[in-house]
């Protein structure tokens, strides 16, 4: 059986890919990359980069990039606390991730925003644990009820308590890493990093143009040393932190990615990295970032580069700038996610938030998971062989007959057809009578899942050990924060 998948024909012709790569190499050398942290400078200096310690700038030679590209693996394994939820990023499927970094959610009575809490995070994680198509669970919102210096640890504790799936988070301070690793061992009975992969991964956002975050990079280096995969995520904003052209924006992003690739491969040859793609265009009316057509063009260029480098890639997916579940949410989320699937992403981002990943919506999470499930059908493509062409059946049925009663229809139906769930069959009149409400039917699903779904339990002694660890971290990290 041949699987024919949708694909772009010669998306970035070799000459254009070479040019983009070559200009990235040029920029890595001149002006170089501002790493903003000494551990990175020290490491890269040992690997024959030219380092300006005063300006914190590293000039990276092309040969080092070539070596790093050779060392980085195509296949990245993302394990999970629950063995059945292990994932392998090898190009054979697209995996949807939760959205991340949200700060607000909507008060149902007033529609107004309020800050998110640990309870919101826990609910989102437990809900996503039950939704099959949510596969990589980003820490979707911040728990504002927890002190900032230990927030990441609480995020992970809440997440692991509520899901057995792979978790992803950004870590801003290297001091948090030992605690995180210990917690990962506690929740997995000492299986945090195995040949199945690590049970969590981290995101390292570069800072456009051509900079790295001073503390996030150090923390991510510490995690990478432990074998935690890193999603490198440049987010250039065309016209503001990147040139106002899809290619120029892509060039900034690719250059920043390559600088991270060199860093992590020098640190640990063979380190698992994911090529993240997060370009945006500045909305000239509001100054906000916007994922519009030009950003999609940059995405296409960068996805082609990830394929060119033979690395797993993460694209924008089901995100939207819409403020409610309505037409704009439909066309933005699905147009972007369809593009993500078509371009052969290993990971497609963005379940569960509105307003450009700022506002948590559990209702959207439910709907997004169903859309993700349907989009996986698009990714699978068409099964093509003589058995599936059914030429004999076409001859047998002829003109005056139908296919309903044919044995092949019965036998192949389930393999070919994905039955949509959560379709909204309300008439215009019913919809208007409901005040154009799109939430209620998803709210019922959310409530049902939160009432019934039990995530895979933690090891028996884990809750107490996590509490102990969080206490210890609160004391120790507070002292360090003060000093």
């Amino acid at each position, binding site marked *: 059986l041949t699987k024919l998948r949708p694909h772009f024909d010669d998306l970035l012709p070799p000459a254009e890919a070479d040019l983009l790569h070559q200009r990235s190499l040029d920029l890595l050398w001149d002006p170089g990359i501002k790493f903003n942290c000494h551990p990175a400078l020290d490491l890269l200096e040992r690997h024959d980069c030219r380092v300006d310690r005063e300006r914190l700038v590293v000039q990276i030679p092309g040969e080092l990039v070539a070596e790093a590209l050779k060392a980085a693996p195509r296949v990245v394994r993302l394990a999970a606390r629950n063995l059945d939820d292990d994932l392998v990023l090898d190009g054979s499927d697209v995996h949807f991730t939760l959205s991340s970094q949200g700060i607000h959610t909507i008060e149902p009575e007033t529609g107004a925003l309020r800050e998110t809490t640990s309870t919101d995070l826990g609910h989102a994680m437990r809900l996503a644990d039950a939704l099959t198509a949510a596969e990589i669970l980003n820490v979707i919102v911040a728990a504002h009820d927890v002190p900032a210096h230990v927030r990441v640890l609480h995020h992970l504790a809440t997440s692991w308590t509520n899901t057995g799936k792979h978790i992803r988070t950004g870590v801003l301070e290297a001091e948090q890493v030992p605690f995180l690793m210990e917690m990962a061992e506690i929740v997995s009975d000492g299986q945090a990093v195995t040949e199945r992969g690590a049970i969590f991964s981290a995101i390292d956002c570069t800072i456009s143009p051509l900079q790295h975050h001073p503390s996030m990079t150090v923390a991510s280096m510490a995690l990478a040393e432990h074998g935690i995969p890193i999603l490198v995520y440049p987010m250039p904003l065309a016209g503001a932190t990147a040139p*106002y052209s899809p290619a120029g924006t892509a060039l900034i992003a690719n250059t920043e990615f390559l600088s991270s690739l060199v860093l992590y491969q020098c640190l640990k040859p063979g380190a698992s990295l994911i090529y993240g793609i997060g370009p945006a265009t500045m909305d000239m009316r509001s100054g906000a970032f916007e994922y519009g057509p030009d950003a999609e063009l940059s995405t296409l260029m960068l996805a082609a580069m990830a394929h060119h480098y033979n690395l797993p890639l993460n694209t924008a997916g089901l995100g939207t700038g819409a403020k409610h579940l309505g037409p704009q949410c*439909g066309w933005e989320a699905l147009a972007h996610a369809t593009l993500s699937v078509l371009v052969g992403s290993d990971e497609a981002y963005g379940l569960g938030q509105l307003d450009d990943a700022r506002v948590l919506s559990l209702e959207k999470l439910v709907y997004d998971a169903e859309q993700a499930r349907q989009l996986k059908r698009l990714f699978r493509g068409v099964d093509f062989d003589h058995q599936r062409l059914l030429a004999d059946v076409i001859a047998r049925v002829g003109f005056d007959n139908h296919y309903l009663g044919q044995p092949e229809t019965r036998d192949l139906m389930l393999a070919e057809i994905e039955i949509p769930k959560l379709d909204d069959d309300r008439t215009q009149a019913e919809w208007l009578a409901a005040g154009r409400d799109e939430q209620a039917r998803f709210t019922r699903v959310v409530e049902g899942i939160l009432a019934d779904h039990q995530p895979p339990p933690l090891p028996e002694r884990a809750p107490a050990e996590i509490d102990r660890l969080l206490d210890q971290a609160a004391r120790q990290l507070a002292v360090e924060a003060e000093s």
Partner: protein
Amino acid sequence: LIPRLKLLTPDACETIHQHSLDLLERVGVRYDSRAALDLLEQAGCQVDDQALTARIPRQVVESCLRTTPREVALAGRNTRHDFTMAEGRPFRVVLSSQGQRAIDLDSGVERPSTAQDLRRAARLADALDQVDMLNEIVNANDRDFSTAANFNRADLFANTSKHVRVMPESEAEAQALLEMGALIQGSAQALTERPLFSALVCTVSPLAHHGPVVEAGMVLAGAGIPLCIYSMPLAGATGPVTLAGVTLLNNIENLSQVVLYQTVRPGVPLVYGAGASFIDMRTGAYRSGTPQDPLIGLPLYDLARWYGMPVNGGGFGTSARHLGLQAYANGARSATVCALSHTDEFYGCGLLDSAQTLSLEKLYMDTEVVRAMRRVVVGAPVTEESLMTEVIRRVGFEGSYLGEPETRDGLRSNPPFCPKVGAYGSYDAWLESSELEYEQAAESVRHILATHQPEPLPEGVVDELHRIAAAYVIR
């Protein structure tokens, strides 16, 4: 970079083609028309007079494919709306067709569609720069059925100077169309040279045609009017349940049309239709927007290109019966696939409920979504100039690109995409304004309907169109 979406390999196209030739030769197709069979018999087909079928030798198919043009030129009343569809040209948006109901713009009530709905949709589409071709978007249920289709077309010609797609179902309708077209374009010859309308002709799956439709198609093809050859096998019911199988059946039926219309008039322009869809397992009926929908067109688009024919692709299909989240979640998925596949015709703006119900707000919003997609489909250059390496060096690590002259120039020559529908500011500002997409679109539609006047036909022409419409009784 230009994104060109594909699915089939050339080998897979060849396999489907060979199976198509084999089945056309071995099983054949029921044409359901004496006139068609007479012609096909002369062309070398084996005709069964009782069953009204023809078996088509492969050399006949091959020879008809050779006379099928690679370009299709369509015209409007005004030459400014003329365009040619061919490989490498931009896609053309054509409205959805054959709806039976409409959502009233003012009351929001859904009801059977009327002649006024058709005229309003035509006038709106005439004003929308993204629409290239109008269509019989809804039927006028308030008209006398015996001539309704003719009067609908007269209304379309009067309310737009753009190209019009029609779906005649009898010889009389085709004759009326030719007469109307010749009147507007100046002569029968002028109509052939600049076809004001083109016709969609649809088979009856599996492997059959409807005689009166075939005869309408033959009349129009004879006059050199471009045809969109269409078939709508329903996978699992009137077609094989597999994507590969329903593609094969759709292709066989399309080739049976290529043979007929190229035999009528070698060189008549044809657009390859991709109308296959999946049965709704719950109701047994046609349903738009299923999870397979974005996939089902792709192999057919590839086949059309493999044959060198322009192709009609399904855009915004949705099963949603109201203009909410699902309408666009469904629609955006297949529209994205269709646009990125560079289908020549981008079909399906304006209807909800599996192409049954007109919503003028949807028509407006659809074209806004299309506008964004066009910007992606044309691609973007990856060149020394567009990479702006020197600007990146100049800005360095701390600077901003906002003040750079290249940014200013870029913003001027290629302004950022500004959607006209949706919320793009802060959440709080949106909550304050409580402005929703439906209302934004309704307001724009009302403004257009209040202000836009299509280019009028010359004095007396509308009366003459009505005289022609009344003269050709359909049934």
